[in-house]
């Protein structure tokens, strides 16, 4: 019966061949570490956010007079409404955490290099969509932080040449952030996740064309690839278990630690809270914005700080495999970059003082300097490594993989790994 149904479908839709090609026999490098789990986790969080979001939207009201009350209605009256909302608000943080780790892994192992540039760029597009979605979603509770966050960020568009003020009014549909803004942010907050799903599909098609990178950075021959199922399905599920434990600790025991207290006060356009900060995942970029003492300059610097990652495939001139794994100079740069991000995040969080602004400026210059200097450093590092010789195990690995590839194609099929 089952086989007849599948046969019927297969004559009309490539179901079995899809499962075979992209799951049961999809060749995956066997040496992937747990850092490769985060793509799957990001996909899981996306589904979680869409699911909780749809059910929250059944109770939410996008109207300035009702939205704050409707959130309280969800938190107090709706069955498990508090759980859905805390899952959604914690999920936003979880999404960024997972995506940032996913990006850090790509940077560390140099996975953005040829032939995976398109994966890196679709990922960059997804990051922008995610940021836009998170930002718009943050307005919806209509608390003080929501309101002033949206006010500040929409005001950034004043930096638009010639039409700055008009663009800001157009974005808001009002002279300040108001009812029109709230309603359109809700509409877009509901729309963008579906664009993200589309983007993820493109990201995955690209992945299945170029296949996963791996910690060695060397394109592995067939003997070192194993089928995705069951090896990586189970590994992804195990990773998911660990992730869910951390996630649930936050959802059930620390949900308010990720929310600003001021957002429990309804939006008041007449009074700005004394200390306004964005959510933690925007802090480094916010610090860069604050470090430039000029509106247009700050906006450009902030935009560039996010977009500059796109240039990585061109900025990194080294052909040594394995990213930071076999490249000591690049590894130092990577860790300095992570530290720099944490410093910027802290500077973005604390209220500005002369001292913190100074630190922020230095960290901002350092942030961009890394990207600017990368082409020279990576080229010099490559020359240095070739002169001193790569670590012996890398040489053996490259040699053995190259030898394997000379085999006839039929000997390199996945089935041969048994």
């Amino acid at each position, binding site marked *: 019966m089952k086989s007849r149904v599948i046969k019927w479908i297969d004559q009309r839709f490539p179901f079995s061949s899809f499962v075979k090609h992209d799951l049961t026999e999809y060749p995956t490098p*066997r040496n992937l570490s*747990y*850092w490769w789990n985060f793509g799957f986790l990001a996909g899981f969080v996306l589904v979680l956010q869409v699911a909780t979001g749809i059910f929250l939207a059944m109770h939410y009201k996008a109207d300035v007079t009702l939205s704050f*009350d409707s959130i*309280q209605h969800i*938190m*107090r009256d709706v069955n498990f409404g*508090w*759980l859905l909302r*805390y899952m959604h608000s914690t999920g936003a943080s979880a999404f960024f*955490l997972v995506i940032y*780790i996913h990006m850090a892994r790509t940077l560390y192992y140099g996975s953005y290099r040829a032939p995976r540039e398109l994966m890196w760029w679709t990922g960059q597009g997804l990051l922008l969509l995610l940021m836009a979605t998170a930002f718009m979603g943050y307005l919806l509770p209509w608390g003080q932080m929501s309101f002033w966050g949206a006010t500040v960020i929409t005001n950034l568009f004043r930096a638009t040449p010639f039409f700055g003020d008009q663009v800001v009014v157009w974005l808001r549909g009002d002279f300040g952030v108001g009812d029109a803004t709230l309603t359109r942010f809700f509409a877009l907050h509901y729309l963008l996740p579906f664009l993200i799903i589309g983007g993820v599909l493109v990201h995955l098609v690209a992945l299945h064309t170029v296949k996963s990178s791996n910690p060695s950075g060397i394109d592995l021959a067939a003997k070192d690839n*194993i089928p995705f199922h*069951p*090896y990586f399905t*189970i*590994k992804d*599920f*195990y990773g998911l*278990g*660990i992730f*869910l*434990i*951390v996630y*649930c*600790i936050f*959802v*059930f*025991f620390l*949900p*308010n*630690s*990720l929310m600003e*207290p*001021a957002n*429990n*006060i309804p939006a008041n356009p007449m009074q700005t809270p004394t*200390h306004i900060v964005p959510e*933690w995942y925007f802090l480094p970029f916010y610090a860069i914005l604050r470090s430039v003492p000029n509106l247009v300059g700050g906006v450009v610097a902030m935009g560039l700080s996010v977009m500059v990652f796109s240039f990585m495939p061109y900025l990194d001139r080294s052909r040594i495999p394995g990213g930071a794994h076999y490249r000591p100079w690049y590894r130092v740069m990577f860790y300095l970059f992570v530290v720099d991000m*944490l410093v910027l*995040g*802290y500077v973005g*969080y*604390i209220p500005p003082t002369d001292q913190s602004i100074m630190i922020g400026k230095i960290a901002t210059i350092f942030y961009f300097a890394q990207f600017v200097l990368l082409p020279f450093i990576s080229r010099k590092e490559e020359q240095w490594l070739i002169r001193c010789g790569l670590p012996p195990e890398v040489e053996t690995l490259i040699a053995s993989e190259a030898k394997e590839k000379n085999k006839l194609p039929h000997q390199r099929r996945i089935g041969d790994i048994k």
Partner: protein
Amino acid sequence: MKKLIFILVLCCSSFHAGAAESKLEQIQLETDLPAVERGADALMNACHTCHSLKYITYRDLVKFGMDKKKVSDWRGDQPLDTALTSQLSDETAIQSYGIVPPDLSLIAKAREGGPSYVYSYLIGYYITPEGMTGNHVFPETRMPDMMGMSGATDPVQRAELQAKARDIVSFLAWAADPHEEERHKLGYYVIGYLLVLTAMLFVVKNQIWSRLK
């Protein structure tokens, strides 16, 4: 990975700790029914005339398990579904205090420091050298010292007032997050289940991967 998450958690918590006012008196909240009920009693007498709790209805108080007779004393002849609105109109409030007293439903979550802030604020009243009442935590406050903290010099009396303030905070913490207890209870089950499931997945993963060698 775990290390990174740990560092991040640490960062988050240190951010919050750093921002919270260091002069706040940290309190250990009592969340049991008697404490919350005593707090409700104190609040209905001292605060409710001016402050509303618009997201709490009398029905919520009964559902939480408070004494039905007490609740019907508080609500008088209003229906059970009435919210705890204040008796002070906005106009009168502005005339007498210059501002509308804030709604207290979410106050325990709406200040940096949470319940500790509210507690420290309530017991933070003192007499300034000029003979006025001041407040250590919120110097610009327009609220009069309703509990008489500033005038209390006797240690026994002060301890009594502090206990009363603690009860009020217990009630306000419940009002700000009425599902907290339920959330924690469910959380233990969920995390317990996840630990078991993850352990099983770990064993299965090792078994499946042992096929390769």
